[in-house]
């Protein structure tokens, strides 16, 4: 579950955002949309514990994440918040499976091979388990990015423009897959996108105005 209250952020005095309060329960999902430059990515970074807001609170499973120390917040994020970025980046020197393994290791968990195998099979990447991640196609990389975000069974999964480089069919498949996986493992899903194709997939939507 993720809840925000009165989150406000400013880059300087002339760029101040007041973000809408949101609440997404376990297994629920929400689309946050807005025009380019409206602060969608900034809001996602605040939700992820990457960018500290000027004021307001962000609760993940009832933990006020910005009250945690820097080190504790790093570990908390690793364990409870999964992130999918518009352009996926992986550890170049590691294989597909090892990229999931390091996500577990960095979160402070033991590398659990059956879990990795399960996700790779689910996302149809099992045949690439030992291949270098950089050799995957765009769609495969996006799926690997989703697998990595889910490998620690996070409470919240945040996805920033996950479909921007995909065609309609693949875009639809990715969103449905994300929703399905989050429902299965009880994660709250937040999609941040300006992609109007996604509106039909979400009952709960919020628009950010610049």
């Amino acid at each position, binding site marked *: 579950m993720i809840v925000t209250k009165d989150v406000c952020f400013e880059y300087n005095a002339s760029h101040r955002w007041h973000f809408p309060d949101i609440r997404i329960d376990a297994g629920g999902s929400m689309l946050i949309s807005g025009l380019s430059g409206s602060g969608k990515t900034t809001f996602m970074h605040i939700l992820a514990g990457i960018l500290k807001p000027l004021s307001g609170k962000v609760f993940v499973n009832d933990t006020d994440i910005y009250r945690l120390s820097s080190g504790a917040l790093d*570990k908390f994020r690793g364990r409870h918040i999964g992130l999918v970025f518009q352009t996926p*980046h*992986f550890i170049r020197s590691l294989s597909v499976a090892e990229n999931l393994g390091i996500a577990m290791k960095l979160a402070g968990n033991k590398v659990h091979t059956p879990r990795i195998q399960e996700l790779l099979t689910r996302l149809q990447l099992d045949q690439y388990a030992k291949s270098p991640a950089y050799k995957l196609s765009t769609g495969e990389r996006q799926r690997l990015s989703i697998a990595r975000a889910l490998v620690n069974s996070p409470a919240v999964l945040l996805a920033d423009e996950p479909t921007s480089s995909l065609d309609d069919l693949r875009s639809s498949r990715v969103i449905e897959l994300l929703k399905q996986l989050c429902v299965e493992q009880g994660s709250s899903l937040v999609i941040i996108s300006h992609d109007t194709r996604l509106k039909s997939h979400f009952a709960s939507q919020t628009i950010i105005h610049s």
Partner: protein
Amino acid sequence: MMYWFRLAWRNLADRPLSTLLTVLLLALGISISAFLLITERQLNDNFSRNLAGVDLILGAKGSPLQTVLCNLYHIDSPTGNVEVNEVKAFLHPAHPLIRARVPLLLGDSYKTHRLVGTTYEFLDFYQTGIATGRKWQKPFEAVAGSKAAKALSLKPGSSFKSSHGLLPDVDEHDHLITITGILQPTGSIADQLILTSPQTVWYSHPHQSETHEDVEHIHSDEANHHHPEHLKPDSTIDTSATQLISHPDRSVTSVLVRLKNHNFQALNLARNINENTAIQASNPAIELNRLYDTMGVGEQILRYLVLILLAVGGAAIFIALLQALKDRKYELAIMRVMGGSPTQLAGLVLAESLLMCVLGLVIGLLIAHTGLWFFGTYAADKYKYSFDAWQWTMQETRLCGIVLILGCLAAVFPAVSAYKTELSQTLTDS
């Protein structure tokens, strides 16, 4: 910990060309540094070991350094011979200042290994004994040093003909010399010599002049035209320095002397000998210090060269890490997002630097020791000077420490940059 070193290794392996160039540059610096340091150390050790506690060398007038190099290190020609009569007082066991002495008679060799006429005290001076067989007990019997025996395939019962000077197979003597024993290895020049009695040397040179122009061949006796045929098979030999006193007209090349103590009187002994007698007393310590002083400037330059080479290696690591950091900034940001702490990221950069240093050390030291092995083979062949190419020296331990510290220093700035990775900005830029 091992996980991070494995990841660091994978990261290095992922950019093989850059890693290889950096490691090779570092290894080059390390190999040259190690070669110079080990050679210097082993030269000093060899010089000290070959000193054999000798305080003075009594011999013919001439260059004192040449006397030292010839009689202690066996890498130069003798300055001449002196009559036993002239050194008689110093051979006497009752001399108030002298604790031990050993005579040397040089001039002949067998296949470039020097044949040294001497007495049993030589074995005490070089702290060795008989490993196989027995000591020489008659004229024309000899024992071989461990390396000489190996190089020349000598064993008890072997016999050979010695030749004048240090050139092989030139101007051979007629008389066969029989090996009766092999010496225990000492790590000193004694390993490269063949030892025999003074009588062997005296009886080998019945017709030659002591003033022979060939400086390498200073034979022992011209006045007594003894011929080997005149020797009875059971002829006795001198086994102690004192026994030489009974042959006042014979010659020796030098007498190595250990003093009882180093008081004022003892220190003046050399000056008194040089000023008041026809012989010369050379102090090995003083001569070697003079030699070191001469070589000191060169050594200093080499030390600066070592520092420059290591600094270049450190700079190469620094540049490689900085470039890798630039190329992998998104990777590092992703690692932070996944829960990696800034300390873990800095540690990863440090681990990469240390791995490159360890690789550089392994390759560099291997090159240095292999180089030393080649150089040692040449030196042993040419100068009968032995290097232990595979011996680990304290200098190498220090060098390893310096290189690892250098690796840490080179990683400081890149590690701090990784530590300070600004997450939001980096991810937005991606």
